């Protein structure tokens, strides 16, 4: 079992004149976890950031706002030289900034124009049906003009009853009205209009016939829209042209800003600096040689003797092979191990997929999920996604293994039994021995027919898993507090289990073993009480709870089988009972089959995944794991788009 990487606490001391070189070399190695300096009585102060810090962060803000505006996404990297990027950075950034702000400015101008035209159009629309030049609406001394919208219809007779001197334009459809009357009659006419729900409309200030005005506005609108589109297209082409540059310069500037701001995290006096931190012990020599080379040996590096309580805070870096590494995601989801602890990644590398496979145990689903995982892994190049897919693939390997043991394919039995024909005609179920509860233990294992045996088997697997946890706990405590504590706190549990086992064998065998078992059991309980006090005794029943909890392996598995075989029954026995005819029934059966199994495939990730995960987190980790380690976060940057 692996433990986290061993760490060495190192201190780098030097004159301020070599601070920059030291920081550059540390950043390049990406091996040194800097401990932030907290100002205290010692007289050391944190330093100021390098002079270029302000400028760098200004540019960084600018480039990120541009990237954000253009909607730049990370893509397959085109690696560029970082000094080349830096050289061109200022001119390119300015140019880009200028063009983009010019273009956005004209876009916003044009968009304002569009809004204006829209209001103009809205003003003109009511007059469209009357189509009278707007110049005719004004400039009279003795004539009053009413222009607006009515709620109800206007009859000419209603006006002619008031006056004969009028000119009326009325559109019965839109109820737009324009009425010219002599000033003398204006009041009476206004009253009439009011009674009809008259709402006055503003007459547009410009002259011209409404229909012509509308046409010209629409033309201009189309023109402006085209220009906006073309500007947006130009910005889009800027995006394709500058994506590489923006990604690369973002990276270069991030690196520069990290370096420029490190002085804020270290202790300095008037002329000297101290950088304090951690490095993996295996890389310590490399770190020393790199810093010495960069500073011509002027910096003084030394490793510090670490007190035990300090070691508790050492940052934690996983120490796993590439195959096990994806499991670190599952660890991080819970909590990173502490520096002293066993890192159980390699244990759950086996147990998590194994329990998943034991639950699902179906070759068909394993093949479907396995190929989906492979396809996603190919399509999406992201570390987090590919780790998840790797875990899913590990799970499917075990699922195929258990699928062979259970003889299941999409809920169909592969081997034939007395009652039914299997998918594979040559594979016959063999009875191995008589199991508990009147069940026959067969190969392949028909889970639905031997539930009691499978519950017992699941609990046995659970006990093995739990004891692995106790062993880890034993090793953790033995290392931290000594053998005696380990024996009392974790060993006692195993002795209790042993006692129960001996007593059970004795009980069924009817021999004196039962009393020996009872003695061992009491011994274990006494040890537990010594190790963990009364809390340990209270915890005793949880051992049974934890072990029985593994019964979910068969329980969740059965639910998956029943869904699958129900789908198969509906499709092939009910809908398409007569298998020879290809017709509507056959098509319906196939649709039910595909949809049903698609549903069950999705459930096959969620249910076994969550339950297998829970068995790790609650039952297994509960026996030994503390977690809460600090992440090893070296000062440096993993370059993607640039190189030195």
């Amino acid at each position, binding site marked *: 079992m692996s433990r986290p990487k061993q760490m060495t606490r190192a201190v780098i001391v030097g004159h301020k004149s070599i601070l920059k070189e030291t920081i550059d070399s540390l950043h390049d190695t990406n091996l040194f976890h800097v401990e932030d300096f907290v100002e205290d009585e010692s007289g050391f102060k944190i330093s100021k950031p390098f002079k270029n810090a302000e400028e760098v962060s200004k540019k960084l803000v600018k480039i990120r706002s541009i990237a954000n505006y253009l909607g730049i996404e990370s893509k397959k990297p085109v690696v560029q030289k970082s000094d080349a990027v830096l050289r061109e950075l200022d001119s390119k950034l300015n140019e880009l900034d200028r063009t983009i702000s010019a273009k956005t400015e004209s876009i916003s101008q044009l968009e304002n124009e569009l809004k204006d035209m829209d209001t103009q159009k809205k003003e003109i629309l009511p007059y469209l049906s009357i189509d009278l030049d707007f110049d005719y609406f004004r400039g009279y001394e003795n004539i009053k003009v009413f222009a607006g919208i009515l709620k109800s219809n206007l009859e000419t007779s209603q006006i002619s009853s008031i006056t004969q001197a009028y000119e009326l334009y009325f559109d019965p459809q839109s109820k737009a009205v324009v009425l010219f009357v002599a000033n003398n009659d204006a009041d009476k006419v206004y009253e009439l209009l009011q009674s009809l729900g008259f709402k006055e409309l503003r007459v547009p200030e410009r002259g011209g016939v409404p229909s012509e005005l509308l046409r010209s506005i629409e033309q201009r609108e189309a023109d402006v829209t085209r220009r906006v589109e073309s500007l947006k297209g130009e910005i889009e082409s800027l995006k394709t042209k500058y994506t590489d540059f923006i990604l690369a310069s973002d990276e270069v500037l991030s690196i520069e800003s990290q370096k420029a701001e490190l002085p804020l995290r270290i202790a300095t006096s008037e002329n000297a600096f101290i950088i304090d931190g951690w490095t993996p012990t295996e890389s310590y020599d490399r770190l020393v040689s790199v810093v010495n080379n960069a500073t011509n040996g002027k910096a003084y590096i030394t490793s510090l003797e670490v007190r035990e309580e300090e070691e508790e805070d050492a940052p934690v870096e996983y120490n796993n092979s590439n195959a096990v590494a994806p499991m670190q995601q599952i660890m991080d*989801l*819970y*909590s990173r191990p502490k520096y002293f602890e066993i890192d159980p990644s390699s244990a759950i590398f086996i147990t998590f997929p194994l329990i998943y496979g034991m639950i699902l145990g179906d070759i068909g689903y394993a093949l479907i999920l396995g190929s989906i995982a492979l396809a996603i892994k190919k399509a999406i190049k992201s570390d987090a996604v590919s780790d998840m897919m790797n875990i899913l693939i590990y799970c499917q390997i075990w699922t195929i293994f258990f699928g062979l043991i259970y003889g299941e394919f999409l809920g169909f039995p592969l081997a034939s039994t007395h009652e039914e024909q299997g998918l594979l005609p040559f594979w016959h179920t063999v009875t191995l021995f008589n199991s508990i*509860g*009147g069940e026959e233990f067969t190969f392949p294992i028909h889970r639905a027919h031997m*539930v*009691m045996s499978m*519950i017992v088997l699941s609990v046995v697997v659970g006990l093995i898993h739990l004891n692995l946890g106790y062993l880890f706990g034993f090793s953790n405590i033995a290392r931290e507090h000594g053998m005696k504590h380990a024996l009392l706190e974790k060993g006692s549990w195993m002795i209790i289990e042993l006692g129960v086992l001996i007593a059970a064998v004795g009980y069924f065998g009817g021999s004196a073993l039962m009393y020996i078992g009872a003695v061992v059991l009491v011994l274990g309980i006494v040890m537990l009480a010594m190790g963990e006090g009364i809390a340990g005794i209270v915890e005793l029943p949880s051992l049974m*709870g934890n072990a*029985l*909890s593994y*019964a*979910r392996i068969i*329980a969740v598995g059965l639910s998956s089988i029943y869904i699958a075989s129900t789908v198969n029954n509906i499709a092939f026995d009910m809908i398409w009972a007569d298998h020879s005819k290809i017709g509507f029934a056959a098509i319906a059966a196939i649709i039910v089959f595909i949809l049903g199994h698609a549903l069950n495939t999705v459930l096959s990730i969620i249910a076994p995944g*969550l339950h297998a*995960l*829970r068995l790790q*987190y*609650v039952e297994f980790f509960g026996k030994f794991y503390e977690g809460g380690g600090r992440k090893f976060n070296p000062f440096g940057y993993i370059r993607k788009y640039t190189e030195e």
Partner: protein
Amino acid sequence: MVDGATAGLFLDAAGAKAVGASIAIAFTGLASAIAEKDIGTAAIGAMAENEGLFGKGLILTVIPETIVIFGLVVALLINSA
């Protein structure tokens, strides 16, 4: 009036076993659900504050699931007795 003898007409031994098993499953399922409801709500509340609590929240939420597993085991024991 229903006396002991006529009750047997409604429920023979197999029927009583089935009812017993179903009671074991139904009530433990309800119990798990009620317990998980409360924990799950709290866990989501905690996750809204701090995303990193997902793992712990998940664990706390699924702890009461053991209740229904016990119910299932009891139901199967009744069934095979």
